[in-house]
Each structure stands twice: as C-alpha cells, then as structure tokens.
C-alpha cells in the first residue's frame, strides 16, 4: 500500500518567556492509506502539538518548526502558506480540533458553516456546496433541517457530528481527530465511535486519532504511537503495542487501564510528566522509569522493529 503520510524528524518548539518549550522533538512516523493511527499519551506530552505541526496550524510563538512531512507524495514543508492552504489543508488533510463542541461560530448557521471550507477555496459554487452539505449531514446521521439551525440549538453529540461533517466536506484523505469524544457522555462517545468506523469503511479514510482514552483508541487503531514528553517512544501495529508493549512507559500506561475480564488492579505511573521547558537529559522517562539504568542518561537509540515499528529505549539497544 502507498504511504499517505510520512513524517521525518519533525520539530516544533514554542517560545515562551521562560525559554523554549520542546513540544514536538524529533518525531518520525509513517502511515498508509486506510490505516488508523492512534496517538496516545498523558496530557501535555505534545499530542496536539504534533497534530498541529502536521496541519501547519501553528500558534504565534513558534521558535522552531522543521522536519519533513510528505502527504500523498507532496513534500508539504516546501509549500508556501498559500499553497498549503490551497492544496493540502482540508483538501488532503483535515482536522477536528480538541474543543470540537466550541469550535462552531455561534452566530452562523450550520449550513453556512459546512460550506465555509469549500467557499474559502472556491472549490465549487454555493449551490454545489449546499448540495454537498446535504449529503454530508445525511452521512453523519443528522436530519437536513438541522442545517438551518444555529450551533446553540444543537446537542453536544450533534455538534460533534457537525464538526466531523465539517472535516469531511471536502473529501480529504486524512482526518486528524483530536480527542473527538473527550467531552461527551459514554453513550454519545459510543455513537461517535460507531460513526467514525462507518465513515472509515465508506469513505476509505485515514485517521490520526489523538486520545488519552486507551480503551477507545484500541477499537479503531491499526497503528499506535505512544508519546512521552514531546517524543514518540514507541510506534508499532496495535496488536503489538496493546498486547506486548515494549517501552517501560507504554507498559506503565497500559497497566493503568482497568480490564474487564481480569482480576488485576490498575497501577499508576508515579511522578508527573517533565516540564517540556527543560526536559531531563537522555531518556526523558528516566526519572519515573522502573527500569532506569545509568546508560539512560544518554539519548536512547531508536530501535527498529521487524513489524515496521520502533521503540526508543536503551533496553532494546542492540537486540535486533
């Protein structure tokens, strides 16, 4: 299968008054068409920053933004902002932001919202766009007359569906879903997850699914990237990462999830994630790692695995 997304050595640093925040630090990953990648990790480990770096949707205080991103064969880092807007954003890749419930303009109607990405790029006339909006709301399971309502007249689940519809209106290849279910109740979460599965099958979408809910991510994911303090510490097929995680952090993270059919008390990872202003030298998980060794003070190597994944830990250095 063709690679739809290839990220190599991506850096995204933010400038603050106290120094640079290393939100995304030397991150690489690959994704094939039709696959779903789940990015999991604690809060503040750079998941959203990674998504934003891929979307080139950056805040004002960027200190460093470099690396290689190839989307569908196009090296997007070489494009100007304008070209990126025209050729990539919402055409190849779209984004459902974290605060999806609040990401609808309260003073314009759903319909006007949905056709906004099309009209902004002049991809179609208004009539065609309206037609598309009708199709897309049907697809996400919302009655057509809701097109003429304002966001405050919709429920949370409906808003979430509208935001998903908004990300699909231009038929992109990749959709980045940044915690799409975090603010919803369990029933609605299940609804949305089913919707996402259905859309994936029907539209052959590639998802990048950002979450800290490991249970939910396991339902959808083909590949998993575990992020810790701005780095991907483990990347691999979901069967491997969920069943036998290699990195100590992945293990700790998965052990903290309660299991339904096992008599096992969930454990927690002691300590707190390090400040990204001044992360620990060498392996960033070292201060909390149960397997810490003196060697860990040096930058750990990236150990490639047979299944196409990698793990960044001294434990596996030289083993493969």
């Amino acid at each position, binding site marked *: 299968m063709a690679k739809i997304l290839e990220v190599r050595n991506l850096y995204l640093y933010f400038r603050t008054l106290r120094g640079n925040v290393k939100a995304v630090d030397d991150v690489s990953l690959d994704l094939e068409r039709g696959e779903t990648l789940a990015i999991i990790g604690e809060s503040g480990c750079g998941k959203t920053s990674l998504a934003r770096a891929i*979307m080139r*949707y950056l805040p*004002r205080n960027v200190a460093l933004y470099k690396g290689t991103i190839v989307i569908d064969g196009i090296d997007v880092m070489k494009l100007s902002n304008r070209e990126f*807007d025209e050729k990539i*954003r*919402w055409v190849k890749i*779209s*984004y459902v*932001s*974290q*605060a*999806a419930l*609040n*990401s*609808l*303009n*309260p*003073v*314009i109607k759903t319909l006007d919202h949905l056709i*906004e*990405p099309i009209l*902004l*790029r002049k991809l179609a006339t208004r009539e065609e766009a309206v037609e598309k909006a009708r199709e897309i709301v049907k697809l996400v399971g919302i009655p057509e007359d809701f097109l*003429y309502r304002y966001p405050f007249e919709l429920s949370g689940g409906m808003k979430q569906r509208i*935001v998903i519809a*908004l*990300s699909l209106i231009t038929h992109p290849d990749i959709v980045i879903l940044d915690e799409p279910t975090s603010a919803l109740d369990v029933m609605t979460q299940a609804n949305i997850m089913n919707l996402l599965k259905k859309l994936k099958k029907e539209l052959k979408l590639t998802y990048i699914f950002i979450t800290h809910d490991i249970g939910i991510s396991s339902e959808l994911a083909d590949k998993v990237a575990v992020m810790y303090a701005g780095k991907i510490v483990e990347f691999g097929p979901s069967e491997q990462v969920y069943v036998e995680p290699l990195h100590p952090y992945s293990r700790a993270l998965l052990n903290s999830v309660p299991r339904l059919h096992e008599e096992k008390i969930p454990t927690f990872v002691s300590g707190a994630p390090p400040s990204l202003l001044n992360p620990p030298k060498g392996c960033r998980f070292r201060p909390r790692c149960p397997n810490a060794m003196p060697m860990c003070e040096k930058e750990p190597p990236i150990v490639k695995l047979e299944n196409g994944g990698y793990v960044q830990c001294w434990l596996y250095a030289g083993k493969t």
Partner: protein
Amino acid sequence: MPGRYRELLSTLFRFKSFVVGLCLILLFVGFSAYAIVTIPYYEAIRMWNSIEYWQDYPKLALPEWINSFSPKKLPVGTIILDSRMQELGISKSVQQIEYGGKGVVINIKFVFNYEYDVFPSELAMWFFVNTTQPLLVQVVWIKPDGTEVPVYADKLGSYKYYRITGDSKFLSSFERELVKKLGAKPNYAMTSEIALFAKEDESILSKETVYPIKGRYRVEIRATSQDPNADLDVKLNIYGKVYGLVGTDRNRRDLWIGILWGAPLALSFGVLASVMTAFLQMIIAATAAWYGKWMDYLISRLNEIVMVIPFLPLLIMISYFYKFSIWTLLFVVVVLSIFGAGIKTYRAMFLQIREMSYIEAAQAYGASNARIIIRYMVPRVLPTIIPNIVLSVPSFVFLEAALAILGVGDPQAITWGKILDEAYSGGALYWGYYHWILAPSLCLVLISIGFALMGFTLDRVFNPRLRER
C-alpha cells in the same frame, strides 16, 4: 429564522418605552418620507434660500393654531390682491380718452373682507408699470364705514415696490387729518396698519382701545397717462400674523418646510454617523486584537493620541480651511469620533473572543484574517453594540445642531441647528419669537427621547447583565 425575530420583537413590544420611542422615531421617519417625496432636496434648498419665493408670506408669523387658544382672532396668512388675477373682488378697467391729446384712464378696484380682531402685520404694494409717458397713480383706501384714506399718489415711469408699512409721509398726513377730525393726537406711535384698519373715533387715540373695523374694505387705484397704450397692474399684500403649522421666520420662510426637511437630515446624519462610527471602531478594534503585536501597539497608541486631541477646536479649525457640506461634515465628525473609549472597550472584548476555540477552528480550516475579523469576531459583539448605536444617534444629532450654532456646518442645508442658529442671531429670544426657537428645539428633544427610549429598551433586552427573564 423569522420565528426568532418575531419572538424578539414581541419581547421588545412588551416594553411601553420601546413602543413610545418607536412611535416618535416613526413620526420623524414619516416626516422624512413626506419631505423627500413632496419636495426634492435640491429644490428644497433652492426654495429655502430664495427671497422671491417667500415674498407673499407674513414675516415672523405665529403658528395658525394659536387662534384656537386666543380670544382675539389673529389675521391668517396673507391677503393677496393682484390685478393680473381674475378673481372675485378684483376688477380692472382701461379706458382710452381724448381730451385734446390722447390718453388713458386705468381703474383698479380691490374688495376684500377683513374679519379679524387684530391688525395685520404688514402692508406692501407692487406697481407693474408699462408706459412711455409717466403714469399718475392715486391709491384710495375705503374702510367698511365709508371713511376714505388717501394712501398714495405719485408719478410712476417704471416698476415700483411700495411698502405702506413704515411710510412716514403717509403717516404724518394721516395724523394731521386725524387731529383735524378728532382734535387730538393718538398717544402712541401710529402705524400704517392701524391707520388703514382702525375705526376713526375716540378709540383710535389710545393703544388700549384701538381696534380694526370688520367688514368689506375697498381699495381704489386710479391711474392716468398721456400714453394711450400705457398699462398698469397692481399687487397688494396684506400680511397676517399667523401662518401654517409652525409659523414663519424673519425671512418670511415657512418654518414647517425647514422642520420637515430637517428631519431626514437629522435622522440620516445621526444614524449614519453613529452606525459608521460604531462599525469602524469595531473593525479597528478587531484588527488590533486579532493581529496583536505591533499592529495592536500602533492602533492603541494612535487611539490614545487622537483621544486627547480636543474635538471641537480641531473641527472648527478644519472648518476654517474647508467649506463643509453636510456630508463632508459627517465624514470629519466620524473620523474624529472613531478614536476614543469605544476602541478600547471593543478591543478588550475582542481580546477575549480571539482566544475562543471556534476562532481556532476557523483558522484550522483556512479562513483568512479578514474573514475571521468580519465573519467570526465582529458578529459576536453586535448584540452589545446595537443599543450603543441607537443611544448615540441623538448625540450626533445634537452635535450637528451645536455645530450649526457655532457656525460650523453646511451653510446651505436646512437643518434644525441652522434654524436655531438663525433664530438666535435673529434675536428670537430677545424679541419673544418663541415659535422660531421652540419648533426646532422640540424636534431635537423628541428625536432624542425617541432614540433614548428605544436604546434603553434594547439595552435591557440585549445586554446579558441587564436581561430580564
């Protein structure tokens, strides 16, 4: 959705203050529509500033409805007697005669009824003469009781305007006759109007008792000339003391026209200035808040600098260099009033809105900066701004009036401020021509009350902190 607007309107209509305010504004909107439909603007300006147009109107007349409250009936409008008109009470005969030479005798007779308790305000005559030889003209005034008063006798060769009011030659001869007849002189300064309308008995001697005779007056004009083709036409105006709905000013202009045309100008000036100011302020503030950094710094500092420049002296200075029309005045007022507390307030609101997640989302799907400002940020603050717009309309209307009084304004436009200015410089307050001052003032006050009532209601409905459920 129309349903939501209906709901909003029904909420608004529950407030009596809103209904009253709306009625007042609609009244002035009606005035404006009527003015625009009946008299086009440039026509109105030409008319207002012309002298000929108003020559048949009484000077400084009170409103006509005064008669309903006054025990003495004041003469209404102007009695116009024109020998060129074919009307009842006007007759003219031209008779060619031979008396050795050739000649002509022209007789013009005017008959009119005068049924008022007060003397007219002014009398004037026009002689339209067309002759090669001088015309000997005699005017005799015959009162209803038969008393004949010779008014005028002269040789005329061409057009002549004769103002009977203030003709001292006539007055002194009249007084002489009076002394001969009654043996006493009146104890006050006789005027032509009294001379021509008063009963000539003891009552005429005192200001308190003198009264006009009611009934049919006749004016006989006899002219002779040696030119057999000579022609004469005469117009006689007897000006009354009340006229129209609001009276007239010193230039005989019907103030109603001024009040009528003042309405669209006041409304459009106030509404345009207020809406433009608010929207420009909003867009500038949104730009500052959205771009931040040097843009924010630039706009904020510029705002602070312009804020401390005094408004009025600057405006007066500009008016010395440029001649204002009402629209350039509007432009200058808007430019000068954009900067101020408004920008600061809106900027603070926008700084908050800037961080909302729907703005971030719009950025993510690629909305441009301008689009985010216009479509995403500005509409968010509109509900809080609408009451402010409505409330600041009267201040701009007042500003225009105040500027007119200061002499900064369109010298041609017919505005209430202009009328007030003319009334003030015409000494209306000193002489007690209150209608001249009160009519435009009342309009200004009513329009302000209208907008204020509406604005306060809108504020109560739109402002979340004042909203009543």
